[in-house]
């Protein structure tokens, strides 16, 4: 009896510890494989060269073009999702009748459950041709439509989490604002949003992290050309796309090619790891602010 209890507890603990092993595994895999890469290519070159052509005869190992591509699509996505998501959160919280909020919030969340290949298809076959009506110079693969569609995908991350944050602001503050003669608009922007700012910031950081790591949309619609540019109209390549591109060629183990995807992977991991941790600590720090 005693023993059985102990055994079960240990097994459960083992499952919990497995999660640590996963993290260790991720870091170990990324580090050990990219270690081989960095033996051939100095980190300095990796960070400062402006071209990424590790597969060509004239090899250049500057990660910056991939980082730029990732940054660009993320920027566009956030530029779409932040105003829309935050406005929706405020609208749902301050203006919409309760019943509407109850229905609209989960329906908005549907946006985040759609598989990302589907969004990629959408970007490539609907959004790009549509935008080409207005921007003739827009290439078929471009950061713009991929970014916009990614933005639509992450709207619910921002709207839902921000809405949670805003509705967690104590009623009494809202009462105070209205009691002073504020309009709902003023209440929202002068009181509620500032008071919920940490939660909103967390939602935005998580959304950024999601956009940085998003793969299929950019792999389908943003192109596969590493290029150090912030021009949203031409094909670019993100870190994730590069990994997919090389993977599609079925990488031979141990080759330089194989190692480059881990070097790209560790770069991606570092970005998202930082973002996730920042958001985690902000959340921790402000969680109990009001109670």
């Amino acid at each position, binding site marked *: 009896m005693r023993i059985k209890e102990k055994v079960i507890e240990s097994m459960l603990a083992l499952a919990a510890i497995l999660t640590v092993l996963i993290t260790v595994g991720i870091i170990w895999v990324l580090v050990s494989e990219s270690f081989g890469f960095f033996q051939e290519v100095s980190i300095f070159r990796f960070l400062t060269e402006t071209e990424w052509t590790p597969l060509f005869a004239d090899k250049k190992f500057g990660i910056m073009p991939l980082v730029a591509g990732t940054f660009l699509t993320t920027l566009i996505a956030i530029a779409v999702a932040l105003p829309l998501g935050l406005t929706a959160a405020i609208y749902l919280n301050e203006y919409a*009748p*309760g019943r509407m909020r109850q229905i609209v919030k989960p329906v908005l969340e549907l946006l985040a459950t759609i598989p990302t290949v589907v969004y990629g298809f959408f970007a490539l076959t609907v959004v790009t041709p549509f935008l080409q009506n207005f921007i003739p110079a827009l290439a078929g693969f471009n950061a713009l439509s991929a970014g916009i569609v990614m933005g639509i995908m992450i709207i619910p991350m921002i709207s839902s989490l921000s809405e949670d944050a805003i509705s967690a602001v*104590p009623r*009494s*503050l809202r*009462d*105070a*604002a*209205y*009691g*002073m*003669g*504020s*309009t709902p608009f*003023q209440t929202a922007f*002068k*009181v509620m949003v*500032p*008071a919920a700012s940490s939660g909103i910031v967390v939602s935005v950081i998580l959304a950024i992290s999601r956009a940085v790591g998003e793969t299929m949309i950019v792999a389908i619609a943003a192109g596969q050309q590493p290029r150090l540019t912030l021009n949203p109209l031409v094909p670019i390549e993100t870190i994730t796309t590069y990994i997919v591109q090389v993977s599609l060629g079925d990488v031979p183990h141990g080759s330089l090619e194989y190692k480059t995807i881990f070097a790209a992977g560790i770069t991606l991991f570092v970005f998202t790891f930082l973002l996730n941790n920042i958001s985690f600590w902000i959340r921790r720090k402000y969680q109990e602010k009001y109670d």
Partner: protein
Amino acid sequence: MSKQYKFEAKEVNAYYGDFHAIKGINLAVEEKGVTAFIGPSGCGKSTFLRLFNRMNDYIEGFRLEGKILLDNKDIYRKKVQVDELRKKVGMVFQKPNPFPKSIFENVVYGLRIQGINKKKVLEEAVESSLKQAALWDEVKDKLHKSALALSGGQQQRLCIARALAIEPTVLLMDEPASALDPISSAKIEELIYELKEQYTIVIVTHNMQQAGRVSDYTAFFLSGELVEYSKTKTLFTSPHDKRTQNYITGRFG
């Protein structure tokens, strides 16, 4: 009706969905001075108080019948702008609720939202409101520190100062001292005593001694009905209604 009242409630009924919270109340509040609402928990004091600045407007399922007049004009008419009304009728809540901003910004909030941003004007308003709220001396050196760092009692006086800054004529107070320690509570009472020279004050309180001390008129509510309303002295010394008497002698509630 010959007399000029500040507020008049006429045959007021209020509902939260199906729940009948205020039952056919008629009541008139004199200009200047303090009117206290007393009654056991849940009897509708807060609900009734919040009718005077339409704070119940946004509550889902809330419904009002009857009229509330402010200076003889129905505040629930179509064309009344709620924000204008609330600038005239300030409100202080049970729990101090300063904004998570500096003391200065708390006080000038009401002015800023009216588009007043001149530094001079704001600074004057801050000084005079904080003085009126008897808080100036305690905070004048840390106006730009966070209001959340103040003690509960100071926070509550800050909320009063914030309400005064937009120069209302009425102050509604919903148990303004009940969340405070006895000393802070006494300070708030003192303050009310001073403010009543200039403002019409309506205060909800659980504390009958407090009602006795600060108010000129007292209304006693019981499950949504107005049981008795008269000069405070009269009500406490010779209540007409048996239920009032039971309540003030502590028989229930």
